């Protein structure tokens, strides 16, 4: 048990900053309501340091205070991809040793999502932030379908190319459009009875591994993840699958 609190300038002082808008005019009652929210959140010594009218019926507050909650970090479990990441060369060697053929990765930015930079970062030759993309990997055939690809097209292309791994990028998350779209794809795989034929991996700025698992995917990768992270997971998972089958 090692309970901690946020830190301002003295250990466990609990200092925290908040900001939010309320659907109220900017006046004393608005400020009092802002404080009431902070109290409900478990904050003491609430100080509304700034308030501003956004229009007649909306006001914005910046608040500082002391959080009374404590958390024991040792009691938490981190849902992260567990395989250790290998280098490009190690991955290439691993495929060479463990598989008797090249592996096929097919990817797309799906639904109405037109953002390609994320999936390109993983798949294209040049990669991202100095990490080459899958197209440059020996023993990997990388097929990038681009963006605005609907789920049906993605599946039929995956079947056509006998893909081992399907990669899906989702960037637009407003009103959980990505959840709807990702759920639909898993349902499609299941309806077609092909869920177990692929390792299916998702990624995007607001995607993480916990969410991926929740939605029925094999893994999820967010910002600061690169081709080697994804490929490491995929080749190990494929090898695991081969053993089971």
């Amino acid at each position, binding site marked *: 048990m090692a309970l901690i609190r946020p830190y301002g300038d003295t250990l466990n002082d609990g200092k925290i900053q908040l*900001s*939010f*808008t309320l659907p109220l005019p900017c006046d004393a009652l608005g400020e009092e309501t802002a404080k009431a929210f902070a109290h409900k959140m478990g904050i003491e010594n609430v100080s509304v340091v700034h308030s*501003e*009218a*956004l*229009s*007649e019926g*909306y006001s*914005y507050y910046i608040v500082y205070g002391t959080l009374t909650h404590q958390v024991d970090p040792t009691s938490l479990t981190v849902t992260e991809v567990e395989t250790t990441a290998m280098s490009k060369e190690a991955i290439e060697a691993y495929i060479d040793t463990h598989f008797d053929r090249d592996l096929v990765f097919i990817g797309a930015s799906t*639904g*109405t*999502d*037109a953002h*390609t*930079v994320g999936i*390109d970062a993983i798949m294209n030759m040049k990669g991202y932030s100095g990490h080459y993309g899958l197209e440059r990997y020996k023993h990997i055939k990388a097929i990038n379908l*681009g*963006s*605005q690809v609907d789920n049906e097209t993605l599946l039929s292309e995956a079947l056509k190319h006998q893909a081992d791994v399907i990669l899906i990028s989702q960037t*637009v*998350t*407003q*009103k959980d*459009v990505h959840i709807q779209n990702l759920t639909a794809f898993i349902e499609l795989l299941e309806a077609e009875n092909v869920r177990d034929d692929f390792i299916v991996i998702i990624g995007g*700025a607001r995607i993480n591994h916990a969410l991926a698992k929740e939605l029925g995917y094999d893994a999820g990768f967010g910002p600061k993840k690169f081709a080697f992270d994804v490929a490491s997971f995929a080749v190990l998972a494929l090898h695991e699958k081969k053993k089971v089958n």
Partner: protein
Amino acid sequence: MKLTLNEDTIRACRTDAKTIVDDLITMIDKHSTVSVERTILRLLGIDGVNDFDIPFVNVLVDHINDHADLSKGVSHYLAAAVKDTKLSPQAIAEKINASTLSLKPYQDVETDMAVLMPYIESTLEAINKQKATRQTFMQSRQTDQPEKYVIVATGNIYEDIEQAKSAAKKGADIIAVIRTTGQSLLDYVPYGATTEGFGGTYATQENFRLMREALDAVSKEEGRYIKLVNYASGLCMPEIAAMGAIERLDMMLNDSLYGIIFRDINMKRTLIDQYFSRVISAYADITINTGEDNYLTTSDAFDHAHTVLASQFINEQFAASAHMKESLMGLGHAYEIDPDMENSFLYELAQAALSKHIFPRAPLKYMPPTKHMTGDIFKGTIQNALFNIAAVSTNQSIHLLGMLTEAIHTPFMSDRALALDNATYIYKAFKDFGADIEFKEDGLMNTRAQDVLSNAKALLDTISEEGLFTTLEKGRFAEISRSPHLGKGLDGVFEKAPSYKNPVIDVLIKQLKEGDTWL
């Protein structure tokens, strides 16, 4: 603060761009598209949807396509049917929808466009009334600093209105209603007030009307006209331009190159559509916003700065060919250099000054940092402040404000308010800064501007040789490659029959040519 640039190079760039565009005008002239035809119908006064939510204009075009020969143009059929039935275009559309009328019989009759003129004139009259209203509103408006432009993107027109009103109160001059992710690929325009969009709100005529009405009310309260923006882009580009003209939008995002590159729309389709849409906007005094700034979201902003400039030259000629005045050409550029780069501000300032120098009368659309924004909202606040400094120091016209939460979500009301506070503060603090300093003759900024210009020239030389289609195929813009034979919407393109008529565009162009757009 003035750059030292070679004016001959600038002139040569314009000549190249004109060659590039002229080359395409021939193709454009020979073709029409389903959306161009639907636009004609809209301008003839046809509105509304059927029980399956299909717009009557689509019903009509599909009907002609399925049962007759669309290459003659919808005007041919309508002229014949109006003359024959004495019904209005709207009534005709409804009858066709109800299958109580067919246009097939009119396929081969002789037609005279004169019968359609009253309908066209009545629409143009409505548009002119809107122009007059805008003119009156605009008299109250200061124009000595960039106009503050913010987006609303809740997906729900009624929430959008709340957000827009708040923005106006906090100093916004221009409100853009962003569209839902899927709309640009729809080959019809949705109908009515809508509340369900993702990352934006459907562009419908009713949504336009509702927002314009709300903004007119705020404009009166604030004593300051608040402009409204939407997207004449995607597969329904000219239709939306027409809707915007009718509902008094003030600006339209409008750029085929954006659709080709970022939406995979077929290049022929959208270039044809764009031509008509720009003629309409030119007539309706609607400023267009072009999208070359977006290239820098996929390409490095430092290395590819010249591609933006080259594209601005091309867009200028596209607009000119559609009889647009310079004062309506909101050519795009952006503040997108990696903040980790040494002297990033200097390069940005040089680029902003360069655009302004070359297009002094165009109301340049200056985009904020987006690509290098992160979840660090404090750093983001600074990135936006620097961008604001560049905007006000080089006196940009249309100043899209950066959001501190750009990397996180579509803007909250407070994000927008903070953005407006940021811009207002910077405008004041740097009011005469641009006028109070000079670039060093052989300094970093002057040299950078000269380099970008000469790289743009080289690129324009190449494009004028190889043609724009090849350029797009080679992925010279945004490093994304597109083929003329692929892309969405190609099936909606058709070659005009010899007898093809578009009486609307004829009237518009005639009046634009006569400078007589004020009836």
